């Protein structure tokens, strides 16, 4: 064949025109599919009219009416056959066949109601569990932020040593000082903009009803940079964030607006008290938007310049040694993360040099490490937060385990189908004899499997809903995942469910279908009882399936056993408190403008009044709730203890009220615990644990020894500050 080989018909067909024609034809075919019934009627009428015309002609030619009709029908080649051919051309044959297969499969499954019910239930459990876990996985790990072009967002981190106060709303996450943020904002080049934000717990009061809430302090360009739009009203702008303390405006989150205000539009321009400061509600953020963080959605957004005005006892806005703000930026078009990282570190270096001037007697080693601080950029499309690290591995593990469960369900179903295939050998033989091709038979069997699987999937959605609910309810609160995964099952997840169902159907249906359609025709037809001895290959396949099933089940059983074992071990750990008959709650009077003195009074009053309730045996208070997940730490000097050079002695600490240890059921090893006599003006006292003694005053009597604690800037949840520095007492 030469390179000049031409189409033998030598008819040039323009590509474009052919495509258009084919598309048009496809569109009409699709319409034909939808209007099947009326088109069927029209075809019948047309064929009838054709016959009439032919019969008329034949009669004119001298035939009897009967002969005329017979000839006409013969010439047409059979009315039904013609209709069938016509239908093939009219719609898509595949769809017609599919409808036929589905109808047949449906009838068959209805007839075997018992089998169908068990099969659907098995599959529903398998598919449902998978859908539930996938939904969690999707929402925690795979979902991008609901903002404009989330892949352009990057988060700024800078790790290294620090002098001064440091806090973050991300465990282990690094933050920046407000002055540094503003300087960097002015001098940065790689970003469209640089925004700062920080979460604080706050008291939100509206119409004399106060509640705990989360406030997000955001820079003026925050919403604009994220590309978030207002649901109503307006969002914060640069003009709302110029002068510290001067912008009493707040934006509500959509979730808070709908739960607290029932989406009432009249909240606009009303006043909400945030930590007892009146703020005008100017707008509501777009639906679904929480923040650039993952988890812990805020209720209210306020300008960052209001941080001091809204935080009692906090004056860190202008302080370069207070690092508390998180930063993110949006890359300029065409800018890579690597290049942006290089560029942002140029102005950052100058800022670090400025911070170095403020350091208080740094050692050479410290100075060197401080100078090495640099900004690293993390991709931002999935949101900032630690949920990924925290939940990624467990969720993938869970997903894997549930997939194994589904695999077992598949194996079960495959075995059932195989058994049924054997029983249906006669039916298969009859259909083959009547002209069904092997392909058609396999298709029929597969249609049955997929129909079963999709029905299982549909029921599985309900199972998924329950499963997800059960998982979320059984997790302890405050783990962040609840807020995140409460959205339930959305389109994406339902799509996953459908896909998984079809895949399952094919997985457990293919081999049985191939097996069943491969029957020996004559022997099964001859066999009057309709029984066929299964072939060797079918048997070995079934054995393999059973073996795989046992293996996977064993795997699941072992991992379940390990889980239970761990759970029992965890339950055996002595937490050092007696949790039975214990109730805890928290209040935040300082956020509502209580002075230190009044807070102390309130605690005493509350303790007294609670103690009077019948059934209450002991009442006490603490600043940080026990097992609340929060901790506060500080460094200190212990009398007679010299830390190794370059190191400091530090420990977690808590402020607790009179009778705290007795109330929590923690026995004292030596000394006494606090009483009402240890008030603010009494000599300061402290209680330490055995670990403290082992580390700092080993082999000595710790009672009466002094420690110096630096509690300056050690956190801001000042709920109970009526027992300040304390003297050493020991307990277990």
């Amino acid at each position, binding site marked *: 064949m030469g390179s000049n080989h031409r189409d033998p*018909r*030598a*008819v040039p067909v323009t590509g474009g025109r052919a495509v258009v*024609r084919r598309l*048009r*034809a496809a569109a*009409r*075919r699709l319409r034909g599919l939808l209007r099947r019934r009326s088109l069927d009627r*029209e*075809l019948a*009428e*047309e*064929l009838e*009219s*054709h016959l*009439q*015309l*032919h019969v*008329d*002609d034949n009669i004119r030619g001298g035939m009897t009416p009967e002969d005329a009709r017979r000839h006409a029908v013969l*010439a*047409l*080649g*059979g009315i039904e*056959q*013609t209709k069938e*051919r*016509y239908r*093939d*051309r*009219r719609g898509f044959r595949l769809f017609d066949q599919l409808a036929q297969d589905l109808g047949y499969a449906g009838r068959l499954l209805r007839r075997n109601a018992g089998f169908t019910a068990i099969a659907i239930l098995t599959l529903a459990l398998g598919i449902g569990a998978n859908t539930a876990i996938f939904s969690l996985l999707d929402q925690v790990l795979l979902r991008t932020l609901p903002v404009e072009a989330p892949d352009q967002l990057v988060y700024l981190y800078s790790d290294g040593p620090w002098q001064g106060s440091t806090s973050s709303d991300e465990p282990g996450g690094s933050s920046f000082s407000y002055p540094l943020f503003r300087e960097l904002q002015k001098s940065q080049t790689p970003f469209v903009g640089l925004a700062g934000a920080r979460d604080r717990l706050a008291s939100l009061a509206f119409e004399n009803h106060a509640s705990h809430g989360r406030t997000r302090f955001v820079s003026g360009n925050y919403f604009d940079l994220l590309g978030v739009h207002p649901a109503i009203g307006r969002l914060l702008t640069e003009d709302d964030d110029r002068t510290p303390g001067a912008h009493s405006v707040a934006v509500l989150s959509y979730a808070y607006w709908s739960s607290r205000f029932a989406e009432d539009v009249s909240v606009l321009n009303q006043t909400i008290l945030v930590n007892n400061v009146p703020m005008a509600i100017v707008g509501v953020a777009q639906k679904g938007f929480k923040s650039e963080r993952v988890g812990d959605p805020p209720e209210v957004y306020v300008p960052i310049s209001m941080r001091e005005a809204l935080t009692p006892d906090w004056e860190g806005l202008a302080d370069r040694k207070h690092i508390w703000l998180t930063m993110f930026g949006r890359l300029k078009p065409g800018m890579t993360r690597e290049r942006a990282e290089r560029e942002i570190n140029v102005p950052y270096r100058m800022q670090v040099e400025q911070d170095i001037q403020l350091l208080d007697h740094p050692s050479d080693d410290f100075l060197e490490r401080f100078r090495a601080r640099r900004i690293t950029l993390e991709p931002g499309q999935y949101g900032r937060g630690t949920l990924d690290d925290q939940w990624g591995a467990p969720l993938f593990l869970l997903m894997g385990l549930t997939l194994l469960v589904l695999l077992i369900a598949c194996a079960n179903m495959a075995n059932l189908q195989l058994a049924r295939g054997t029983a249906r050998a006669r039916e298969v033989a009859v259909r083959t004899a009547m002209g069904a091709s092997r392909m058609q038979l396999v298709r029929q069997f597969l249609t049955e499997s997929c129909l079963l699987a999709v029905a299982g999937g549909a029921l599985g959605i309900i199972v998924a809903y329950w499963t997800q609910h059960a998982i979320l309810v059984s997790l302890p609160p405050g783990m962040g995942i609840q807020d995140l995964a409460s959205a339930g099952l959305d389109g994406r997840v339902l799509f996953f469910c459908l896909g998984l169902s079809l895949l399952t159907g094919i997985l457990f249906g293919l081999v049985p279908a191939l097996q069943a359609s491969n029957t020996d025709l004559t022997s099964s037809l001859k066999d009057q009882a309709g029984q066929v001895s299964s072939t060797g290959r079918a048997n070995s396949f079934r054995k393999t399936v059973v073996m795989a099933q046992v293996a996977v089940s064993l795997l699941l059983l072992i991992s379940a056993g390990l889980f239970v074992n761990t759970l029992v071990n965890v339950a055996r750990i002595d937490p050092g408190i007696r949790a039975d008959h214990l109730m805890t709650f928290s209040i935040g009077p300082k956020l509502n403008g209580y002075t230190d003195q009044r807070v102390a009074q309130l605690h005493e009053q509350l303790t007294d009044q609670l103690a009077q309730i019948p059934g209450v045996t002991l009442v006490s208070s603490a600043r940080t709730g026990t097992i609340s997940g929060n901790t506060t730490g500080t460094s200190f000097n212990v009398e007679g203890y010299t830390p190794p050079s370059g190191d400091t002695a530090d420990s977690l600490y808590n402020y607790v009220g009179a009778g705290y240890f007795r109330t929590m059921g923690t026995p004292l090893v030596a000394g006494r615990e606090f009483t009402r006599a240890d008030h603010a003006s009494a000599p300061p006292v402290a209680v330490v644990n055995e670990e403290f003694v082992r580390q700092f005053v080993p082999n000595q009597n710790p009672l009466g020894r002094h420690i110096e604690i630096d509690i300056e800037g050690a956190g801001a949840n000042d709920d109970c500050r009526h027992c300040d520095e304390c003297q050493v007492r020991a307990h277990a």
Partner: protein
Amino acid sequence: MGEKADVWQGTLALMVLKTLETLGPLHGYGIARRIEQTSGDLLSVNYGTLYPALLKLEQEGYITSEWGVSANNRKAKFYRLTRAGRKQLGREARAWDQTTAILARFLSPGEGRS
């Protein structure tokens, strides 16, 4: 009927279009009869394949259909050539001429290679 040649695959559409161009709107039976007559009753149209072919042409937009009444007062579906159909007929006819001319040159003795 045995001696008659069946209409070749692919040429039926061309014949239908030509018939409609010549005679104007016509029903299926009329088209079939006309093709048979034009061929001098040498061709037999398989009526069973005619209707799918008509449907295909209609789906491609070359003809449209409409219910009407035949000459002897029977209700029938009449097919009519569209403008696209007229163009298509021109194209197909030219292509067909070309094909037959090539074949003729192949088959005529002495003209094979020059």
